[in-house]
């Protein structure tokens, strides 16, 4: 019987892994194809558009030939996939640099920004949400609850680049406390990271609070209270893990959004990452760079989603088994 139960559990995990892997591969394929189509759906001739109307026809044609744009679509698609898998991302039409080098130069700044912002958001929101839930449970402290809810709704609505602009105004211009642009020393991180983190932190804190409130009503919390455990243990060991499931789901969604929001925040703070690069590349019609950056962002989002799903499965083993 023991082995039977073990085998069933293992099986559920294997099924979960297989299903999740299949979805990841499918999503990656869709992403690759969409990035390919994105360039080929552009109305008109992208090379002509990039080189300008005054460029001689031979130059345009030579460039088209060089990029393989004169081949049939299927052949181009095949070349595109083959190039991707061998790491050849093409050459920037503006700077002439290999795209892979542009990406390698730019992605660390963006990754740092996103990771720090996410960590700050979680570190702020989970304790805050938990504390708020404990303080306002069963309808006590209504004024505190109202203040918290309205503040968090407000902060959750304001877009990141506006938060960034406001922070620059207050801390950079008015108080002169923090540098407002560029990527230098540790204090240059403060404002961009905060600008990215505040909105998601507000949303997460609200969700943590609501989930924790629901958990605090649960029968097993009464059981834990009947055991006369210290409050710290009651809230951290019994309530928190159960309220984290929804929080992690939402955190994952927010992290995906946060990755994308770096685009705006980087532009506010002149942060030398992928986000400022993609905007200038779109404006300059530097399509190979745009395509590669979209791929990097997309893969990042897919990776985040995978981590979230695995994390959820570990947190709440029932969901994995039930689903398969």
């Amino acid at each position, binding site marked *: 019987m*023991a082995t039977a139960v073990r085998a069933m559990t293992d099986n559920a995990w294997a099924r979960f892994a297989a299903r999740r892997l299949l979805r990841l591969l*499918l*999503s990656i394929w*869709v992403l690759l194809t969409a*990035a390919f189509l*994105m360039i080929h*759906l*552009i*109305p008109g001739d992208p090379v002509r558009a990039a080189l300008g109307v005054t460029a001689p026809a031979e130059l345009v044609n030579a460039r088209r030939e060089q990029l393989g744009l004169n081949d049939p679509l299927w052949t181009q698609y095949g070349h595109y996939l083959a190039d991707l898998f061998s790491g050849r991302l093409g050459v920037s039409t503006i700077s002439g640099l290999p795209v892979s080098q542009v990406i390698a130069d730019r992605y660390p700044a963006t990754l740092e920004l996103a990771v720090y912002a996410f960590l700050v958001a979680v570190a702020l929101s989970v304790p805050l949400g938990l504390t708020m839930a404990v303080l306002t*449970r*069963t*309808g*006590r402290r209504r004024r505190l609850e109202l203040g918290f809810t309205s503040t968090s*709704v*407000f902060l959750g*609505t304001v*877009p990141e*680049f*506006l938060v960034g*602009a*406001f922070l620059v*105004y207050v801390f950079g*211009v008015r108080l002169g406390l923090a540098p407002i642009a560029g990527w230098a020393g540790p204090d240059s991180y403060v404002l961009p990271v905060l600008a990215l983190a505040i909105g998601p932190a507000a949303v997460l804190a609200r969700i943590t609070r609501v989930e924790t409130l629901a958990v605090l009503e649960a*029968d*097993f919390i*009464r*059981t*834990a209270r*009947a*055991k*006369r*455990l*210290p409050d710290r*243990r009651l809230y951290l*060991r*019994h309530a928190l*893990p*159960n309220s984290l499931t929804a929080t992690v789901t939402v955190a994952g969604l927010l992290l*995906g*959004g946060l*990755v*994308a*929001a770096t*685009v*705006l925040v980087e*532009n*506010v703070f002149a942060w030398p990452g992928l986000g400022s690069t*993609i*905007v200038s590349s*779109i*404006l300059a019609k530097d*399509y190979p760079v745009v395509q590669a950056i*979209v791929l990097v962002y*997309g893969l990042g*989002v897919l990776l985040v*989603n995978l981590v979230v799903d695995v994390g959820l499965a570990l*947190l*709440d*083993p*029932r969901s994995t088994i039930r689903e398969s």
Partner: protein
Amino acid sequence: MPRLRTPLGGTAAVLLVAVLATAVLAPPLWGEKAAAAADTANILQGASAAHWAGTDGLGRDIFFRVLVATRLSVLLALLATGLGVLTGLLLGAAPLLVGARVGRLVTAAVNIAVAFPGLLLALSFAVVFGVGGTGAVLAIGFAIAPAFARLTGTLVATVAERDYIAAARIAGVGRLRILVRHVLPNIGEPLVVNATVAAGGSLLAFAGLSYLGLGVQAPAYDWGRLLGEGLNSLYMHPLAALVPGGAVVLAGLALNLTGEAVARGIGQTTPLFTAVRRRRPEAPLPSNQDSADVVLAVEGLHVSFPGVTPVRGVSFTVRRGEAVGVVGESGSGKSLTALAIAQLIEEPGQVRAERLEFAGEDLRHGPSRAQRRLLGTSLAMVFQDPMTSFNPTQRIGRQLAEPARAHQGLSRRRAFDRAVDRLRAVRLPAPERRAHQFPHEFSGGMRQRAMIGMGLMGTPMLILADEPTTALDVTVQRQVLALLEDVRATTAAALVLISHDITVVGQVCERVLVMYAGRIVEDVATAELSTAARHPYTQALLAAVPHLGTDRDRPLTVIPGRPADPGDTPVGCAFAPRCAYADDLCRRADPPLEGGVACWHADRTVAPPGPGG
């Protein structure tokens, strides 16, 4: 919209109307002022009486430019939302429109697209559609479409199986017509709510794209472009960025909050608790001298919530090793009595008692460390629903071990060994393996055994079991009752067994307390229950139990009338409205519990109504 009658909804609606009015009125009223270059001497001026928010690089008034920009900003956001909603609707309803097979493909594609953040989609679409206002509308519209398609798909799936859809299909109604006539009206409300919130989102997204230079292009201007220009001169002239920024936030909030308010109006609103008036606890009375073998002494126990007092003066004692049953209909206050004894009533609930002692310890004065320890080791609780009473994220063994670690200072290893030993004591098969499992791997009966085992981690003096067998089937019920008796015999712990089922109590307990409307109405030995019960309510309870001699052709006996409403208990005896013996005295004065029964006519009610009448 009649659903906006909350402060939140009201504020949101006023904001929204203001934004829309500005969008309509501002361009004709102030369009010229906004376009007019005041004069070249007034470039990048700060706020002044003539220019409230100063002037921009060409000497134009920023305040009026922000007002005039409302129209384009709102219009583009609404266009993008409309496009997104329509596309999402068609994609989401694909299973209905183009058949199940293609529909499944579309749904799969939507599910993949939803995983990518809207801004990333919008940027990719902006590449395809080109830089500019039209491109941005298409980009944002298509970017919000997947989320909408998913929502529509879920909603359509719930409606598509209904009978009237099937009927329409059989009647040969076209697919598009079914969607428009039969499906959409039934899923309209949530769609409108989400479209409103999405409009707020696209407004903010548009500001973002225009700020990046990918949206509206000069000479046209929306808030995003004004913001971008303002940010360039933030040092010299902060208002140029802060004013359009404020406008964006305000309009975004107006749309979002309106959506939220309507959503809240559609869903069930949670009943607001009325303000809790804290009652000052009454001065403690000197406790009676009592013999040492009383485990639990309760006198004048009241449990109240704002507006209701479901437990109204309960008094009883439980002696060492004694088994006492508490019976009554749901709402009689029996579970609250147990929770009050166990100190588990939380705010806004209030517990008052003239006396509340467990093992000689007065429980009425806040939980001291020693008291928590006493309750944690000597009072065992068994709750009604074993499926929900264990923490789903922790292994059973660890949950049992917890109190031993907290109160008895056992190491992790030793506490766990003790847990395994206790699981064996409650006759759980394979306790070592079971201790490593999660609650969802246990059956209901096994969980209830484990719960009893948890109570045995310390040295229980009292087991408080609140409907421990109600959620279990009859054979398991019998096993759990046998286990409780067994535990009582081996540990000499007293038992308070709460149940709505008088026969369950009769099997296990020596004494029965019958509760009605928050009071004990009878206190009688189990052996004398069928012969010497004197309260009309107890007699009615007994008569309602079917047994082998019950005439099955006759309807089952029921107690006439409704259980007393805890929020509205009468002045006299609470049972009087349902009692055949009630007279004026009963309706005027509440009878005290004297000689084991609380009834003015305890002596007059002669023979209990026999089985079958």
